[in-house]
């Protein structure tokens, strides 16, 4: 019986250090997590590249994208474009995992990224040109 206790003694010390090691590992992952959030917090914005003068949006103005930005003619959108070629709820731009996506919400005249009409959800990057109705937007970071 004493021998078993002797062997168990070493096992217990080993296990105690295993727990300590695992706790340190979690704390290390935790520290790395903080750094990742700080280092990669990207912010995106839209610049009005081109717009006709009668729709109340000046060329060159900037719109910061928070988590989601909806675009359309209705007044409840984040970016309201008073243009008859733009649908009520035209498109939505959103940030997910530090990446930017655009979604067409079934608009009549379509949403174009770099001159190509998009189907549903598509990832966009800095420098891409988005055309909605008669206005053109540029993605900035």
């Amino acid at each position, binding site marked *: *019986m*004493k021998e*078993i*206790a*002797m062997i*168990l*003694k*070493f*096992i*217990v*010390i080993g*296990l*105690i*250090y*295993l*727990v*300590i090691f*695992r*706790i*340190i*590992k*979690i*704390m290390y*992952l935790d520290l790395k997590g903080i750094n990742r959030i700080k280092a990669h917090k990207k912010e995106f914005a839209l610049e009005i590249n081109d717009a006709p003068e009668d729709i109340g949006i000046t060329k060159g103005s900037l719109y910061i994208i928070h988590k989601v930005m909806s675009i359309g003619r209705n007044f409840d959108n984040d970016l309201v474009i008073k243009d008859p070629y733009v649908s009520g709820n035209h498109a939505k731009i959103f940030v997910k995992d530090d990446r930017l996506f655009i979604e067409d919400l079934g608009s009549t005249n379509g949403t174009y990224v770099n001159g190509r009409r998009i189907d549903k959800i598509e990832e966009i990057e800095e420098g891409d040109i988005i055309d909605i109705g008669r206005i053109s937007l540029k993605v900035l970071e």
Partner: protein
Amino acid sequence: MVNLEKSILKNIYLIIILLFLILSLHRGTFEIAPFIYGAFSIILIFYGHFIIKRFYPNVDKYLFIISAFIVQFGLVMLYRLDLQRAVRQMAWFAVGVTVFIFVLLLFPNIKRLEKYSLTFALLTIIILTLPLFLGREIKGSKNWIQIGSFSFQPSELGKLFIIFYLSGVIKKINDYKDVLRYSIPVVLSIIIFVLEKDLGSALMFFGIFMTMLYIGTSRISYILSGLGLFGIGGFLSYFMFDHVKRRVNIWLDPWKDKYGAGYQICQSLIAIASGGLFGTGLAGGHPEVIPEVHTDFIFSAISEEFGLLGAIALLILYLLLIYRMLRTALYAKDDFSRLVAVGIASMFAFQVFVIVGGVTKMIPLTGITLPFVSYGGSSMTISFLSIGILQKISEVGNSDE
């Protein structure tokens, strides 16, 4: 992360079962009683962890997990040393977990206590002077209050009150005059402690004050002058008070009077030395020859039976706990909560340093408890109360992320 957390808890449960298995084997026959005791402990940890996970998934769970793990060292050691005390200590562990959950569920936001700093100062002084009138002398220190069969150590509660007081006033400090004015309650408490012959608490109050002053003002000159004054005060009290002189002389050479005044510290050193690297194994050594082994000298008993590796593991766990507390301070939303967190972290750090340094003869021995491990209701309850307060701060800090 969640899986790793679960496996850590499972490992801790396994360690508890193995420790009590060793205890049940040590008399040569298999016993069931230690397992029941161990099972209680597991249930308490499980329950505490369950409550945190259920109600506050965002808070720092490791404060609780690490403290509960540290408690196990004390419980298993006490079970091996003194069954009656071990049962009572388990009850105090249950009280501690309950207090912890109560603080978490019912306590208001810590920031609201900021306005009452003067009340906290008065409470500290009142609660510390009580033993001078009501207390009785236990083991050379007059720092206990006894009501019926229930005795209570007010310095434990005093530490928390002074931390709340200091967190409230340190921001208002602009120059030396302010430091002097706001340090009056601290100086008074230290004088009371010296009169009560409770030098360990005096040292701790000073340490907490200096740490919080430095964190709050970040001026090194305050700390240097504080240390200078402390040096002068210590030097004077060496000549003024007999008990201070005796402590220092024992520390300088315990072997001179190894059957008298130095007996305790000599036995402690022998115990630590006989443990070696891997220890004598639970119930394999003779730590019971050290007087007061279940409270102040429990670290020597752990060193003997778990060995150097076990003792270092315990110190690493304290280090991780204090790191976790300082992390809470970094994430706190306002200065008051931040200073409270720093104060509590420094309280634990100084307490561990003063008692572990004391029993290993690195600094003069002063009798204070090793938080979470030593036998004692006041210490256990206040330690869990502090962890609860920190958990509360971490909850507020994480809430709007």
